[in-house]
């Protein structure tokens, strides 16, 4: 019996080895520098699935690619306000995330979000905030108000960097001017437009990829930034300090979702499940420095991460999550942004 068992085990192992080759592939389409290679390696080692990663620079780019019929991606990572659009446009499919074994680890605070209240489509990736960072040695201000970003002082002339897509910039402007998100009131949007056009005199570049480099080289003294990316810049030696303005910051929640055209749905679900394991999610959080929505990750955090100012905002920080805008509101946003950039 024992012998038979060991034979069986050996057989199972050899089967496992051949299966590993046949486990197939997984194509992830994610934001730039948002998929830690060691996490991918770990997933590949555990499952035998071969992972390929391609990157994009904004939610808008992702949406345009999917709308244009891009196929071959099994997982994409949109922010919360793009998930309903993708659902309505039929671009992503139901994958019963609530049914995955590790779904129990989902932090209660993040359960039943308005963009996917039943967790049919999305598994958590990271959540974070959009604000601005400044040169901690050369900039004289303290980043206590969004006024420093939107109505810059003279020292920022030609040394301010702003994101090149309207999504987060206009949301931040909404917070600063106290205008509700997705406003359909042209008069209110005109205020935002005037402010952004005036701000442009100070802008050195519209950029959302090399913000910390701009600060390091001194090309910019202040830049739009994400909290975790600002931390990475700081850890790499850039003199960046992430600002928590008193008016508030824009919050976002990025999730893993599966495009309708995905070929490896089961592998995508395996990856979702893998990411809801606190050990794995902690690796992601450690490398990215945003927040996660999984229970029990904190025990794996390094001391550095536990005390990083970018990850530990002041307790009274006002974080506002942008909803999905109506077509009318979106059209106003596009008009404002075209005006600013032309």
């Amino acid at each position: 019996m024992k012998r038979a068992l060991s034979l069986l085990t050996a057989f199972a192992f050899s089967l496992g080895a051949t299966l590993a080759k046949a486990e197939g592939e997984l194509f992830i389409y994610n934001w730039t520098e948002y998929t830690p290679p060691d996490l991918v390696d770990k997933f590949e080692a555990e499952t035998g699935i071969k992972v390929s990663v391609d990157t994009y620079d904004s939610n808008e780019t992702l949406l345009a690619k999917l709308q244009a019929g891009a196929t071959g991606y099994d997982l994409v990572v949109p922010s919360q306000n793009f998930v309903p659009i993708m659902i309505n446009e039929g671009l992503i499919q139901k994958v019963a995330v609530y049914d995955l074994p590790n779904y129990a680890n989902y932090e209660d605070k993040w359960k039943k979000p308005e963009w996917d209240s039943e967790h049919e489509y999305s598994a958590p990736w990271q959540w974070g905030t959009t604000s601005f960072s400044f040169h901690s040695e050369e900039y004289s201000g303290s980043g206590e108000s969004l006024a420093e970003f939107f109505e810059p002082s003279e020292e920022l002339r030609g040394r301010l960097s702003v994101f090149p897509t309207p999504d987060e910039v206009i949301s931040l402007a909404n917070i600063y001017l106290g205008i509700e998100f997705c406003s359909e009131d042209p008069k209110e949007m005109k205020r935002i437009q005037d402010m952004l056009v005036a701000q442009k005199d100070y802008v050195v570049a519209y950029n959302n990829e090399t913000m910390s480099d701009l600060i390091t080289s001194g090309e910019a003294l202040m830049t739009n930034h994400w909290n975790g990316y600002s931390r990475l810049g700081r850890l790499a030696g850039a003199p960046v300090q992430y600002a928590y303005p008193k008016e508030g910051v824009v919050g976002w929640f990025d999730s893993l979702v599966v495009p309708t055209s995905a070929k490896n749905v089961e592998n995508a679900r395996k990856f979702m499940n893998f990411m809801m394991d606190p050990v794995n999610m902690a690796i992601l959080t450690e490398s990215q420095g945003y927040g996660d929505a999984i229970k029990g990750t904190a025990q794996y955090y390094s001391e550095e991460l536990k005390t990083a100012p970018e990850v530990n905002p002041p307790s009274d920080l006002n974080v506002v999550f942008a909803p999905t805008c109506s077509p009318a509101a979106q059209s106003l946003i596009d008009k404002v942004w075209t005006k600013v950039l032309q």
Partner: protein
Amino acid sequence: MSKWLPKSAAARRWLGLTPAYVMIGIFMLVPISIMAVYSFLEPNPYGGVLPEPSVAAYVKLFLEYDLEDNLVFNPGYINIIFRSFQLSIMATVICLVMGFPVAYYITLQPENKRNIYIYLITIPFWTNLLIRTFAWIIILGRGGVIETPLLNLGIIDDSLKMMYTDGAIAIGLTYSYLPLMVLPIYASLEKLDFRLLEAASDLYSSRFQIMTKVVIPLCKPGIVAGCILVFIPCIGAFIAPNLLGGGKKLMLGSLVQFQFASARNWPFGSALSMLLLSAVVVALIFYARSARKKEYIQGTA
């Protein structure tokens, strides 16, 4: 001859050309038709198009509803188009001024060396355009390769502010497309009969006259081909304007990209592309016409 082939020579020629027609059909006519059709449809607010005919995209080139919903003349897009042409012409001229002497120099080298030089000219193409453009950020940027020595030597005491300017875009475009200028000019210079230069010299031409009256007219097809090859990608470029220009002043290429991504107005993006395409085609037709006319005049004279 196989019995499958058609009998008449004309029909056989057609058959022989079929692969070319299929290629042009699939890779040129189909995409352009899609673009043309899209430009006459309504935009879907979340990307893509709605199947409703509309000329709104073309109207938008000149007139636009402002935030108060008044239809007003909008010079914004015209300005962007004008700026694109301006920068592309500038880059083409710089490429010509730098590329011609290089091509000429290579032509004058012994044959075995020529190939090495041509090889060297094409080396930048082995690297991704994005990376090559990125390298210019390090060269031109604050605290970069150019600035740091000048600062240390005390020649300047503040940043030269070379990055994120029109000049930086022009440099990036010139650098990207210079080989496309050198290669066609070299191809036509290589065929140049240098005895003609001696003859001109024997007939008391100055060096300047030899250049303007003999060399340049004879390699004009190469120069024109080079200019076209540089000008056309420049006008649609968006990597250099975004990376080196900081995306502050939109060029046509970036504007089209913006319409497809952020603004989600695919018909307008298509209309802009159609406009760009027609401008280029019209320019090429004029060139072809004038070239033919000149040949005719020269032939009869």
